[in-house]
């Protein structure tokens, strides 16, 4: 920064960076995290079957990232390392999504203010509640700002219209099958073409499991789910 030849006001600099990051994130596809009766549903519009956007982080915590793959993939790995280190050093119950979300917020905030190029990512972290603790969903933006979402979080691509569309249709946590159908319709509506099941990456923090509760639902599982639910 010191080598910059002429003056740029801090406001301008931040605005430019934010615009750059927002554009990068909007170019990609969306991901949604939604509370359902059966747990917390993670779904992403993802044509690749192997480059994941959603992932398990810890026993009851999962991650969704959108934007630039290399950047959110690094963040995902850093989160898993942070969680595993903490769980190993103290106990498995001491790993909480709140502390992880704070760590991410710090990291993204620092990167945004200090680096020339901000990270073009937006991430969502969620933890399934237990022992009377409620479910928690956090959305963390490219500049480190953190939002506590009570029901759902949509990020990436056309996140705002998607979020508005979904909030219109769900007011309380829906059953899993209905949620999957809703998300599929919403993804399809925003992209203008029907969404093939194979393009949906879906995972669930499953309330009925214990221990490591995250499981992926592949496209045949989704098809079964939609059939049973109709």
């Amino acid at each position, binding site marked *: 920064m010191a080598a910059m030849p002429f003056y740029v006001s801090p406001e301008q600099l931040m605005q430019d960076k934010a615009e750059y990051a927002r554009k990068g994130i909007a170019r990609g596809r969306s991901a949604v995290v939604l509370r359902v009766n059966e747990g917390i549903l993670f779904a992403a519009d993802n044509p690749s079957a192997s480059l994941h956007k959603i992932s398990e982080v810890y026993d009851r915590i999962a991650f969704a990232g959108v934007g630039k793959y290399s950047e959110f993939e690094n963040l995902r790995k850093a989160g898993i390392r942070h969680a*595993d280190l903490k769980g*190993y050093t103290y106990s498995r119950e001491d790993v909480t999504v709140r502390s992880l979300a704070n760590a991410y917020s710090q990291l993204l905030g620092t990167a945004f203010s200090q680096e020339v190029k901000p990270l073009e990512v937006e991430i969502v972290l969620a933890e399934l509640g237990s022992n009377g603790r409620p479910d928690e969903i956090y959305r963390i933006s490219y500049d480190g700002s953190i939002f506590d979402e009570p029901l759902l979080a949509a990020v990436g691509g056309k996140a705002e219209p998607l979020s508005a569309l979904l909030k219109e249709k769900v007011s309380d946590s829906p059953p899993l099958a209905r949620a999957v159908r809703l998300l599929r319709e919403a993804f399809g509506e925003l992209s203008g073409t029907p969404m093939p099941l194979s393009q949906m990456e879906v995972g669930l923090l499953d309330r009925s499991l214990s221990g490591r509760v995250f499981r992926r639902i592949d496209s045949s599982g989704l098809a079964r789910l939609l059939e049973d639910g109709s």
Partner: protein
Amino acid sequence: MEEQRFRGLPVGFDSSSFLDCLRASGRFSSSPPPPGPSLAGALPHATTILALRYDRGVVMAGDRQASEGYQVASRAISKVLPVDRYSCVAIAGAAGPALEMARLFRVEIEHYEKLEGVMLTTAGKANKLGLMVREALPMAMQGLVVVPLFAGYDPDAGRGRIYKYDPAGGRYEEEAYHANGSGGLFARNALKMLYREGMDRDEAVKAALRALYEAADEDLGTGGPDFVREIYPTVFTMEADGVLERTQGDVAAYYRTFVEGLRKKE
């Protein structure tokens, strides 16, 4: 490991190993203990563990006692620990370091699976455990010997697998059964009589429990079924559906019938 940092957090790009990550964090001391007299007699030791294959998977069991010389250190420790969806590790030897190794091994396997998005192969897991045993060799030289047993269902091969280790990290696959720890010899002898190829799950569980009973009968360090305190051996089965623990109620029912049978013979 070459330490790299990604915006402040320690990141090892070229490694999916939790151990590397732990070392880089500075929270793990791998320096050998200072030379001195052997601690072997003064620390709790975990005793008998065993595993045997059946037609669709593998069963693993262990008694519940930890012994300190001629004394009971604990009556209810668990020596068989689930590692992931398909495998378990059982420990014998110095209880503290052994349990620690099992805990670290579990995190290591889980960490890899989360980072890479795929599970390690069964052979990969077994090799990793071998490396961890070898790294504990300096401790073994001081009497703190840790000898694990690893068993799991191999989804690629569609069958159960058993791996045993020596204190120097040698890894050997067993085709049928193996038992380890202070009562291991007696349990192995019992299994030799009871094992046959292609036995089903219930038969295998019964053989495992019977072998533990025989080991406890002959070996002071091994705990038998404790009807007074209601402490019974732990038994896990591993097959395509995953790892399943037999309830203490199930195990108790088996031993009650078994002991009843012994009485009638008298």
